[in-house]
Structure formats: C-alpha cells, structure tokens
C-alpha cells in the first residue's frame, strides 16, 4: 500500500512537471522569432504567401489557443508536423533516438566500469601517490567544459593524427527498425571520440564517489571482521565493499544517463552526430517549434522515468530502504 502511495505520488508529480514544462517551453519557443520566414522563400515570397503560410500553421491565432491546439493534438498522441522536415515531430525524434542511445549507453558503461575501478583502486590505498593522483586528476577532468574537451579530441584524435574520423556516424546497420553504428567497424571508429567526450567527466565523477565510499566502508567493522576471518583482499573488495558502495554509484549512473540525453547536444553538435540533442539545437535555431516541443517532452519524460527507476533500484539494492519506505 505504501509503495502504491509512493508510485502514485511520483506519477502525479511527474505529470505536474510535464504540464508546467510544456507550458513554459511552449511560451518560451513561441516568444522568439517567426518560423514563417524559415519556411517560405524569403526572396520570392509575396506578403500574401507569408500571410497564407502563417494561417496554415495556425500562427495567426492567439497564443492560448495555439496551446490548446497543442494539448488537443497531444491527447491524440501527436506533436504536430515538423515545419522543416514535413514529418510527424515525434517520429522524427524517435528516428534520431538510436544514435543518442548508443552514444550515451557506451559512454555510461565505460564511465561506470572505469570510474568504479579507479575509485576502488584509490579508495583502498588512501593517502598514497595513486590515491592523490586520482583525487587531483578527477578535479581537472570535472573542470573541462564538455565542448572544449570534444574539440580537443577532434584536434588530437582526428585532425593531427588522423586516427579517428572527426564527425558523423559512419556506416550503420539496420536492427529492429533502427540504425546502429556499433555493429560495423567503421561505425565503431566513429563512436570512439564522441563516447570519450561524454565518458571522461563521468569517469571522474564516478571515481570520486566510489573512492569516498570505499574509504568509508574500508574502515567499517564488517571489513575488519572479514579480514579476521581470513578472507582474501580481492574477495572482500568485490563481495563486500563493492555492494556497499554501489548505491550512490547507481544513483549517479541513472542521473547522468538522463543528463547525457540532454547534454549530448553539445557533443553531438561538435561531432555532427545525428542524435536527439543535435536535433534539438538545430530545431531551436530553425524555430521548428513542433520538434522542439516533442524533443523537450521526450527528454523530460526520460529523465523523470530514470529518476523513478533509480529510486526503485534503491529498494532492490538496499534492504534498509525497503523497510523505511
């Protein structure tokens, strides 16, 4: 019963969030520019053409009526049609999804593995050279602005050495109706730099968390008990320490994965990676309002859903949470 209450409360809050966000986003994107000028040919269009295009898009209506139309369309599952691509906006977002997902998934997997590894390495040897190196290097890694990191990866990984391509997805393979790059050698090569750009700050973040957790857990009585019992260091580390530090790591992995869907737009713009983030940036610049709304809603829903999943995982990973909830 308590669980039901928690879930319904969360759903209600998520719903409220989406309503408020759609309202703010709607007013926001409708307060800038006039998309008609991006649609008609500005040199040949007569005032009559412009007027007709405006009426066709419903832009002559007052804002509140446009919002009502938007909500009405939403109730039938439609975000409207893209002004630029003349495709249903939500389908357009979905078609770009596989590119962003494979980027974010690879980045977060690498970050989780490398970050946890570094954190355990440093945390079991507090105060040593390795530990201090990890602590200092991670601050630097967290300070690099992601767009500059991406550009430096382009400069050193592509322009100067020619090891990796500087942008694009390379050749893709169709699987389950989506295009995937990681299934071809060429696609994998294209993935390396953008994945690194997304992963590096997250490796640092996870390493710091894992290190702090390890330092704390290593001092705990149960670790000393395990030592007294004669268990090997490796056994203690992976069977006892790791599960105990996993909670904050799972949280940050979930949150960062959601954040990546939003933050990937910088990395995607630089590497010309045709994902959701690049679509959002391009649509904002082209004033393609239906696509902007569809993308914003999609990212928000994903983020909220991931938050909820993380909360549920808590209960699975930590029995204490189950009892107190």
């Amino acid at each position: 019963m308590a669980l039901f209450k928690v879930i319904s409360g969360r759903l209600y809050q998520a719903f409220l969030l989406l309503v408020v966000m759609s309202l703010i986003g709607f007013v926001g994107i409708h307060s800038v520019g006039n998309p008609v000028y991006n649609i008609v040919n500005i040199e040949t269009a007569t005032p009559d053409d412009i007027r007709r295009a405006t009426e066709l898009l419903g832009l002559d209506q007052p804002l509140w009526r446009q919002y009502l139309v938007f909500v009405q369309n939403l109730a039938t599952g439609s975000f409207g049609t893209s002004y630029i691509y003349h495709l249903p906006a939500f389908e357009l977002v979905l078609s770009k999804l596989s590119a962003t997902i494979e980027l974010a998934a690879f980045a977060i997997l690498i970050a989780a593995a490398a970050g946890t590894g570094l954190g355990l390495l440093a945390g079991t040897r507090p105060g040593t050279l390795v530990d201090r190196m990890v602590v200092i290097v991670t601050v630097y890694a967290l300070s690099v602005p992601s767009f500059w990191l991406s550009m430096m990866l382009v400069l050193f990984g592509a322009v100067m050495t020619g090891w990796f391509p500087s942008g694009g997805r390379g050749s893709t393979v169709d699987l389950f109706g989506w295009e995937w790059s990681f299934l071809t050698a060429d696609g994998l090569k294209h993935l390396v730099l953008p994945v690194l750009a997304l992963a590096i700050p997250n490796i640092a973040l996870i390493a710091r968390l894992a290190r702090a957790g390890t330092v704390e857990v290593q001092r705990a009585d149960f670790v000393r008990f395990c030592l007294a019992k004669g268990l090997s260091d490796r056994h203690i580390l992976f069977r006892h320490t790791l599960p105990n530090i996993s909670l904050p790591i799972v949280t940050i992995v979930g949150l960062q994965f959601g954040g990546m869907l939003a933050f990937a737009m910088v990395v995607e713009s630089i590497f010309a990676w045709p994902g959701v983030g690049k679509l959002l940036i391009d649509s904002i610049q082209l004033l393609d309002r239906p696509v902007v709304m569809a993308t914003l809603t999609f990212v928000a829903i994903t983020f909220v859903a991931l938050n909820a999943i993380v909360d549920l995982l808590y209960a699975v990973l930590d029995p204490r949470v189950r009892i107190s909830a």
Partner: protein
Amino acid sequence: MTIMTSLRLSQRRIRGALTLPNGILALFVLAAITAPVLAPQNPYDMLQILGWEASSPPGTMSGNGYRYLLGTDGLGRDIASCILYGLRISLVVSVVSAAAAAAIGLTLGVVAAYFGRWVDAVIMRAVDLQLSLPTMLVALIAIVTLGPGVDRIILALIIVQWATYARVVRSVALSEAGKPYVDAVRTMPLSHGRIILRHLLPNSIAPAITLLPIEIGHAVALEATLSFLGLGVPMDQPSLGSTVANGFQYLLTGQYWISLFPGFALFALIAAINFAGEDIRRLWDPRSRSL
C-alpha cells in the same frame, strides 16, 4: 569555542587559502580587472582590428606594432586580448548570477523553513520541479525564452541555480527553526522579517557558502556552453565560450590556436575555482574531509 582555538582555526584558514590554485584564481581575477590595460587590443572595437591579419598563427607581428602572442581569429581579433576580455564576461556573469541565486535561494529556503505549511509547500514544489530536469535543459529553455545578451544569460543562470541553494538551506534552517533560541525570539515582539534576517538566516548560511564556489564553477561552464551553442552572449562581445566556438570551423583546417588557447584559459579558470571550492568545503564542512 575559546578564543585560542578560534584563533588557531582562523590561522589555519588563512594558511589553507595560500595554495597554487588560489594564486592562479587571483591572477585570473586580476587579469580580468586590468584587461583594458593588459590587452594590446580591444576586441570589441572594430577600428582596432586589422581584417587582413585574420587567422595569423601565434607569434605573428601585427601591423599595429605588437605581437599576436596567441595568434588571431577569423576576424583578425587578437586571441590573447579576446581571452582577457572574455575572462571579464565569464567572471562577471558567473559571480553575479551565483551570488544572486544564492541570495534568492537562501531567502526562500529560510522563509520556507520558518513559515512551513503552504509557504513551504509552494516553494519546495517549485524547487522539486526545477531540480527534476537536467540543468542544461532548464538553462536552454530559459535562454531561448529570454533571448541573447549578457543580462539575459545572468538571469537564465539565476533561474537554473536558485533551487539548489533553497533546498540545501531549507534543510538546515528547518533544524535551526526548531531550536529553543528561535522559540525565544518568537516570544519577543519582533517582526517575522527581523527574526528571519537577524536570527535564522545567519545560522543557516553555512551550506550556501560551501555551495557557492561549486556553483560559480558550474556557472562559468554553463555560460560558456550556452555561448558556444550560439545562445549566450552576442558575437560582438566575445566571451571565452563564444571565442572557442568561433574557432571550431577553423579547427578542422588545422588553425588550432583560435579554440585551443581560450578553451585552455576557460579550463584553467574552472579548475582553479573548483580547487578553491574544495578548500572552502574542507574548511567549513569537516565531514567532507575524506572526499
């Protein structure tokens, strides 16, 4: 706390503050303040820019009689001068927005904790809404709505940042508000405003102070990112982010200096702020010392 221990503590604080990153940070601030004197060129003044010296590599002599130490960009602007002037914008935007966000968040957090009930509910729901979306997304919506410009970007960053302060401060203020001294002042004929400002707020301020440097670092990065995406400060007022962005198209043809150096300055600035923030946190919050 005796006078001696507090003296020793403040001594430790002063000594702790004399680190390399803090020195670098001080240099950055100094460079930003003295930019008009230090910079050989004013990159905002088109008359001082020689268009035919565009994209000169580092070390080229200028026709104006000085050396382009770090080269010029695609318009002929001296990169070193762009960095110095860009620093001003980055620092002003981040410090002003973080300070304003801290003031707003602090006040709302304390007010929520003091009044409780519906005031608390309204403020905290707004905080929840704000924090349940990725920062970048909130910043993006805000800046698109507000439009470009330095004042707009400050406003957008305030909108992004206030909620974090409000949440952290409220949790501390809640426990403070339950203490006997607050009950005691509540029995006196003092206005709510006075109790909040003179008694509750000073005792709830610590977490906001440890948060401030971290948020300033975030603000520098966010401003640069928004400017990089072409949504931040306008092109004729180059910030560090937009200077880096300008260089992107030249990067692929090997003219690395346009984005390399300003980006490195940005990176060093954020790193220095983050290290300073770590120091402050260590001194103010003993629990995080193991981090």
